[in-house]
């Protein structure tokens, strides 16, 4: 092929595409294998940039976890391990179906290839559905990045907030309606190819709501029970939750005078912003009495004197907020990659229905597969690092 082209530039026609050069082989490649290998190197280079891109976020995670391991332990209690584990399983299964799909493209099992791609897509949608349950639940509780963090342990589920789940489901509901309308129209018009495309795609769109249902069941199962109780108990919240931790041993002397005669005066004096010394002392006494009465439990013994008795709260905007900032950033960018993967998988699905792939041309399936496995691989690290901190 290339010898012909090189030998005679005047006869350098593309008219020989029919016999020697298959239609799927770009004219600047000698053989399908060369085309495949070039594309494969390209996708590996892309995956390298992806790894480096995610490493920035993993680095932020590592720095913050190194400086504040207690924040991670405290905040991780708010992440539902069950949902994370289910999502891990869903992604692993989608990886299996994707790898299997690559095999089917190589062995030219077209029907199976379409089915497996649709299966991979459905898993991606289930993943997003479960994720939207997780996100909306946390947004409703005010567990947001630093600037928006409004979580209040005394009132974890404030009423009258935005129904975030509705907003998250809305685009997918519109998509489902659109695809179903497309399916009906193409059935009516008798366009077989479009029916073949729209049928698996409507199943795919439906599986988002399967994921939402699955997530809702698991979330409601654990929300009242262990998960949140553990969350509130492990974190020292000064709103009088019952917990079995033993308060730090503190000298009782002077701990009780807040609220009595002297305390009132001190309090009034301390209102004066200039009187910082008295303010600090009052604060220290307040902390001490809280500790002594067991309404607050310190993770560390911090109350040492009147000056630097800064409460080591985990659930403050700038501590928990940074954790949730990292959480939303990492899982959110990962979810965006899932969305991107859904986009290219839909393209593959349509092409597989068109039976574009054969054992000499399965590159696109393989490349998308590699991308999909990388997304899975990142989740393999995200799940234990975010959800499984005790």
């Amino acid at each position, binding site marked *: 092929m290339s010898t012909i082209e090189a030998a005679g530039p005047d006869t350098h026609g593309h008219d020989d595409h029919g016999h020697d050069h298959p239609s799927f082989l770009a004219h600047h490649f000698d*053989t399908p294998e060369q085309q*495949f290998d*070039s594309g494969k190197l390209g996708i590996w280079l892309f995956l390298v940039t992806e790894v480096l891109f995610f490493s920035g976020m*993993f680095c932020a995670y590592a720095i913050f976890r190194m400086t504040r391991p207690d924040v991670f332990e405290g905040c991780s209690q708010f992440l539902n391990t069950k949902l994370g584990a289910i999502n*891990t399983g869903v992604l692993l299964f989608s990886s299996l179906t994707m790898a299997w799909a690559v095999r089917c493209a190589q062995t030219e099992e077209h029907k199976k290839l379409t089915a497996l791609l649709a299966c991979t897509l459905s898993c991606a949608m289930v993943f997003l559905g479960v994720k939207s349950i997780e996100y909306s639940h946390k947004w409703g509780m005010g567990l947001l990045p630093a600037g928006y963090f409004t979580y209040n342990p005394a009132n974890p589920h404030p009423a009258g907030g935005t129904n975030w789940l509705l907003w998250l489901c809305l685009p997918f509901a519109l998509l489902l309606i659109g695809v179903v309308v497309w399916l009906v129209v193409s059935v009516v018009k008798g366009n077989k190819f479009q029916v073949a495309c729209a049928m698996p795609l409507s199943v795919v769109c439906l599986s988002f709501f399967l994921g939402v249902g699955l997530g809702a069941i698991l979330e409601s199962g654990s929300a009242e029970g262990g998960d949140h109780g553990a969350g509130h108990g492990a974190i020292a919240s000064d709103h009088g939750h019952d917990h079995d931790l033993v308060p730090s041993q503190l000298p009782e002397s002077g701990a009780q005078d807040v609220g009595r005669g002297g305390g009132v005066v001190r309090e009034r004096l301390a209102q004066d912003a200039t009187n910082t010394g008295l303010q600090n002392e009052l604060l220290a006494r307040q902390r001490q009495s809280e500790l002594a009465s067991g309404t607050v439990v310190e993770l560390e013994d911090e109350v040492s004197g009147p000056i630097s008795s800064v409460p080591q709260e985990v659930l403050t905007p700038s501590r928990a907020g940074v954790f949730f900032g990292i959480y939303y950033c990492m899982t959110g960018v990962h979810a965006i990659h899932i969305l991107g993967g859904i986009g290219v998988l839909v393209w593959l699905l349509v092409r597989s229905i068109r039976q574009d792939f054969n054992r000499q041309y399965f590159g696109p399936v393989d490349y998308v597969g*590699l991308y999909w496995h990388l997304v899975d691989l990142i989740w393999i690290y995200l799940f234990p690092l975010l959800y499984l901190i005790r």
Partner: protein
Amino acid sequence: MSSPSHAADSHAAVTDHAHSDHGHGEHREGYDFAHPLPLWILFTVFAALVFLTLVTVAQSNFDFGAYDVAIVMLIATVKALLVALFFMHLAFDKPFNLIVFASSFVFVGLFVIFTLSDSRMTSDAMEPVQDGLVEVAPTVATP
């Protein structure tokens, strides 16, 4: 990768003996390169991945202290290796692709290690110490 040598080959073929057996498809060299992975490998790898996921969920119930992160990362890395070697075909791929991919982790390692050691040396906390719990009016200088 193999493209430069291929191009050189075909040009050599032009000068030496044009229209040789090269590229006319009798041998179909470069046309039969698909190596479908046996299904049992795929299923075994999937089973191993699910098993390791269960292990990593189970281990989070036990307290290993400082080794916690190490154990979690070890399990995750084993899972990642399984995915990379079998699902991503790296075990059967051209070594060059493996080198390219593995080299990215070398640079990730350099990046994370240098940044972590730097942040350890320069700052011990990422947030202000007085953290909004204490409402203090701006301090006016006392006479």
